[in-house]
């Protein structure tokens, strides 16, 4: 099992912040922001020393919860400071970005990192449709098409045009190309039938997140079935699972930590917007409909002492089939960075050495 650390650039606000999304920019403290990015690098140096396999970043906007609206810039900054660890972009949102530009920037990053890049591509959480004004009804199709543009831009040797539904280009011919051939390990992220099918058809990996084993297991099973239909078999490395983990010396302490977590959804939207999204956006787990927005916090799937967690990881491998576990340690947005550092040490010293052979 490979272990990845999900880095969110912990922003510690000097004053209490409203919980709504988007968070008003006026609350932003410039000094606290600068400190968050400085601390991020220090923390990741420890993450690298502890022997984590990957560090991951993701794209979220308009909120201090995950302070990497450009995950590509974050990754480039991290790549300049860390020398060994694999950098995973999980991921840039495809539907509201220019996919050719994404292909170029990811190729640059792969070259900067000397081939230490892993890429996950995704539609994005529902609230992000408000970022850059994306029509929710078009998001899925734009994602699928954009992902295909990226794969094509990485691999075609001559200038080409693209006559799409949502994207049209008459001249694409990127420089640099990715360092890894034909391109960095790539994942279609999401538990939906569409994401799994896309991944299977293009022989790329599948990334699932923030749901219990039995839910994400449905998606990874569906993904493997689809891969078989397309005549290939994925390895455990083809499946990444991002999940919350609360780790402490004892199970009791870990559960006490969970009780102290705020009991609210990660992105709290105005009621009218939320209600509208419930009908305009559609989401599914391997084809079974699910609500586009959560009403409560993201589940904490891994919780307990190192011994308990090792057992949970073993079970995760059996039930989900994941070969890479991307850990959101101490929930994103929580600004208790000391607690996060203790969790990192525990994972690095008490868990990592015992899950390598899983």
């Amino acid at each position, binding site marked *: 099992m490979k272990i990845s650390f999900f880095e969110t650039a912990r922003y510690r606000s000097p004053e209490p912040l409203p919980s709504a999304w988007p968070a008003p920019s006026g609350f932003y403290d410039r000094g606290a922001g600068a400190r968050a990015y400085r601390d991020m690098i220090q923390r990741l140096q420890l993450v690298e020393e502890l022997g984590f396999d990957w560090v991951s970043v993701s794209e979220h906007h308009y909120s201090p919860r995950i302070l990497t609206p450009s995950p590509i810039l974050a990754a480039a900054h991290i790549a300049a400071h860390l020398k060994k660890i694999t950098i995973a972009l999980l991921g840039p949102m495809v539907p509201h970005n220019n996919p050719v530009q994404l292909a170029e920037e990811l190729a640059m990053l792969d070259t900067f990192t000397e081939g230490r890049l892993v890429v996950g591509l995704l539609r994005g959480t529902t609230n992000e449709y408000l970022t850059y004004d994306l029509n929710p009804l078009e998001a899925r199709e734009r994602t699928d*098409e954009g992902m*295909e543009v990226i794969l*094509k831009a990485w691999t*075609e*040797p*001559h*200038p*080409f*045009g*693209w*006559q*799409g*539904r949502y*994207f049209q280009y*008459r*001249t694409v011919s990127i420089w640099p190309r990715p360092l890894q051939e034909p391109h960095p390990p790539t994942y279609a992220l999401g538990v939906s039938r569409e994401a799994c099918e896309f991944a299977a058809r293009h022989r790329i990996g599948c990334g699932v997140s923030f749901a219990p084993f039995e839910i994400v297991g449905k998606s990874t099973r569906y993904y493997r079935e689809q891969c078989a239909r397309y005549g290939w078999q994925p390895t455990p490395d083809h499946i990444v699972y991002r999940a919350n983990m609360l780790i402490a010396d004892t199970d009791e302490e870990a559960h006490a930590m969970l009780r102290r977590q705020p009991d609210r959804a990660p992105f709290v939207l105005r009621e009218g917007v939320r209600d509208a999204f419930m009908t305009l956006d559609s989401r599914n787990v391997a084809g079974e409909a699910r609500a586009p927005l959560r009403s409560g916090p993201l589940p904490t799937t891994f919780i307990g002492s190192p011994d308990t967690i090792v057992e949970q990881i073993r079970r995760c491998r059996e039930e989900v089939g994941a070969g890479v576990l991307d850990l959101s340690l101490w929930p994103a947005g929580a600004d208790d960075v000391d607690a996060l550092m203790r969790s990192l040490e525990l994972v690095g010293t008490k868990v990592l050495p015992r899950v390598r052979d899983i």
Partner: protein
Amino acid sequence: MSERSMAQHDAPGAGFEEGFVDADDFRIRYMVSGDGAPLVHLHGAGGLRLTPAHDLLSRRFRVIAFEMPGFGQSAENTRTRTIRELAVTMARATEKLGIESFNLLGTSFGGTTALWLTLEAPARIRATVLEAPAAIRPEGSEPPSGSPEEMARRLYGHPERLGTIPVADPAIQAKQRTLVSRLRGPDRDAGLERRLSELQTPTLVLFGTLDAVIPPAMGRIYQQLIPGAHLVFVYDAGHAISTERPEAFTDVVADFFERRDAFVIRRTPTLIHP
């Protein structure tokens, strides 16, 4: 009215008129519609079938869609020996119709014919568009065959979106298949490929990203062999691009015929509010 709803208003090709022309002792049927610069279309191995793309193109061009000798209702063609000969016959047919110079569109097998026609009569061709051309194929590739369902799965990326797919008369199919297998030539025709470097005609090659008859990766070889050839992928279309995505197909084809190399320059306005 949007292009889509206009195109679907009538059965495809309803505005086309039938005509016949004699060339090389063949009586050649064609369908014609529209004004503007002439656009000659050479169909694929399945014969002539008018699609919404023909309707859309006929609003900007005078579209002449030929039924090549031996296809459809025409008599069995046992005389034409090579696809090059077929191309020469089609060049004569256009001459007989008084078309001096024209835009040339060839589909699949008709793409190979169009390449030969461009090589044989370069001065008369303003620009050539090859829709999923079959002139360069991976070794051992087989043309689609089997039940109508199997054929549809090979030809279309999304057969389920097309509604009822007309089934051709089995006798006509058998006749066409015999002709095509005799004329289609080797998967890699060294004689043809050697000559492609002569081409001065602006050329656009189109492949559907879901083409299951000719892999879209063949597009690269045309770019290597034809000086300045353009390659455009039509997303989410199979082999029969013009049937599956007529609006997307027409947009790029018409733009290329009208502006040739300059079609790479975007002219679509993006202004939201003046």
